[in-house]
């Protein structure tokens, strides 16, 4: 349970880590579960309110895993209510930093390749990779968030990474020009 580094921060969740960090993580989870950028803010708002209202029910452990679990459950509830399939990651959502036009193209292509590979992963694998690679969750925290055993999470992460490498490599091999 960590507080943000600003000792005078008095935001609602600060005793459990800074609200803003949790909000960023929730936004990412919401987006990658629902795949609808229009709903990110609304769902994040609902989730954070739910988290706040359920602070009494928090019984220790990693608070951000607790938040992630609430976020996942809420998102899946919403999806279940809507009964809609998931949408692919839109190309326009891919962020790029482009010092120049040429680098923009190269970077965007690289990110696009990985995005295509990620789209082929299981949704749970995407969530796990998001928590692990972006938000630096430990395996135990991920396990608490997705309701799995840590060992299973570790295996799942390794397999997802391997699959990702294979997918990207395979794409590159297919797209490489034939010689001779």
């Amino acid at each position, binding site marked *: 349970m960590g507080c943000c580094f600003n000792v005078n921060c008095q935001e609602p969740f600060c005793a459990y880590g800074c609200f803003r960090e949790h909000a960023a993580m929730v936004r990412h989870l919401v987006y990658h579960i629902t795949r609808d950028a229009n709903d990110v803010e609304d769902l994040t708002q609902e989730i954070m309110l739910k988290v706040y209202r359920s*602070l*009494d029910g928090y019984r220790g452990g990693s608070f951000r895993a607790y938040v992630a679990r609430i976020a996942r459950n809420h998102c899946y509830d919403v999806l279940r209510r809507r009964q809609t399939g998931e949408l692919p990651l839109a190309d326009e959502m891919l962020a790029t930093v*482009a010092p120049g*036009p040429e680098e923009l*193209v190269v970077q965007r292509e690289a990110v696009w390749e*990985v995005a295509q590979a990620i789209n082929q992963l299981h949704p749970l694998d995407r969530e796990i990779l998001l928590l692990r690679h972006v938000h630096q969750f430990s395996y135990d925290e991920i396990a608490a968030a997705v309701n799995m055993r840590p060992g299973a999470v570790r295996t799942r992460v390794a397999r997802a990474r391997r699959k990702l490498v294979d997918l990207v490599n395979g794409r590159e091999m297919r797209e490489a020009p034939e010689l001779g």
Partner: protein
Amino acid sequence: MRHLSWDEVWEWAQGAELPAAKRSHAHGCPVCAERVRRCEELHRALVCTLTAGVGVTAGDDDALLAFLRQEAGPLLVSAQAAGFAARAADGSASLLAGASADPVEDASAGSGAGSSAGPVAGRSAGLVSGVSAGQVSGVSAGQVSGVSAGPVASPSASGVAGSSAGSRPGRANRTRRRWIRAAIGIGAAACAAAGVSWPSLEARWVHGVDDAGSAVAVATAGREGSAVGGASDVSSSTTGSAATGDAEGTAGGRHAAGRSGQGTSAGSTALAAADGTGGVGRTAGTLGAAAPADRIAGASGSAGGVTRQATQSAANDGSAGSASWVQTAGPMEEAPSSTGAPTASSNGPRAGGASTTATKAVQNGGPVRVQGRVQVRASDGRLLSGATVTFSAGGRVLATARTSGDGWTPVLSFVAPADPMLSSSTPSTSGAPGVAVVTVECPGYRPAVVYEVGLADGAWMAPVVTLEPIPSATPNPVRPNPIPVTSSSATFQA
């Protein structure tokens, strides 16, 4: 020694520690070095991909916080009973601090957006609770998403920097977005039917602070088309220090907002929020340090609808002396806040002499001279003549030209201002880089807006922009008013 396993390499790429023997092996072994390189690349791309699409700005968090304060305020007692405010020993009213404080001034027009729940009025010491939740995404840059708070100059003055633009419950948000979608859809359809391009947005905010030594543009909106451009999500955070207080300039990039910036400095609230619903917050109280913010609002604009013209000024007599805030706008379309409504907020009493590094960059950055021409094609490869290509930066049109029969514009030669954010973040570069927005419009095609086109001094550029034709308008049974937001169809090729 055996090679590093993929798991070890992945963990290493993520920053985990490895035993020294394995590290030395990885450096010497070509197989492991290649794996490391590969994993690092993939890790960066993973972070970039997984964080894309969710632009996070300090404004979003502020709005969310204000909402929580508003909605969950009564829960504070129970939360405290549960030990919620354990760490807030010196300020148990952590949640209500913003809500209970009198909003310094709340002038919201339209639907009531733009409420500001600021810190306690009269707080004079400079606490910076500035937050930069910017996101720098990209393969090369990786992803930076975090919170950076400025130093605390006066620990005794604890305060909550609680500025918010538009705290409204979720239902109101959704209703508002539906109206915006409707407006956008109607505007797009009307423009498509008439064969005209979307109205351009020419808005310029001038934020003058007399004791800062320089006038700084706070928000500048360039031309705006229907297409959300390349959606470059860039932000950088600049933190400056003040003599007696602290100031933090925050440039919070946002997806689909091109690049944006907003200055945040400590203390009391001065909020100016141009919200999509027409609410224009007014500056109030003491105005914070001027943080330059070149903002190019790339949100999907509503066509046709001129929603407001605002000219306002506010004189403040806070600790920093007077400040003026003038917004002069031509027709300014609504921009949904979810895609980056131009919002500039500054919190806090301004310490004398406070200046941000970005301010200095504005003063020091030199112009960039660029030559080039642009070719415009349709998505089917046809060369388009008569397309209008516009380079703009900082709210000014740098150059504009029409394409001829071969799809190329004449050679354009223009001088672009150095980008303050790039200049401040890359102080070692000899030539200050610039950034322009390229807008391409052609009747019958979706306009393309490409943000973050890097400009180097003396460079020659010849990009090719591809436009997509506007399909015939057919009603969408699922979403009657589709947002005509498409990715930028422009593909820049060197």
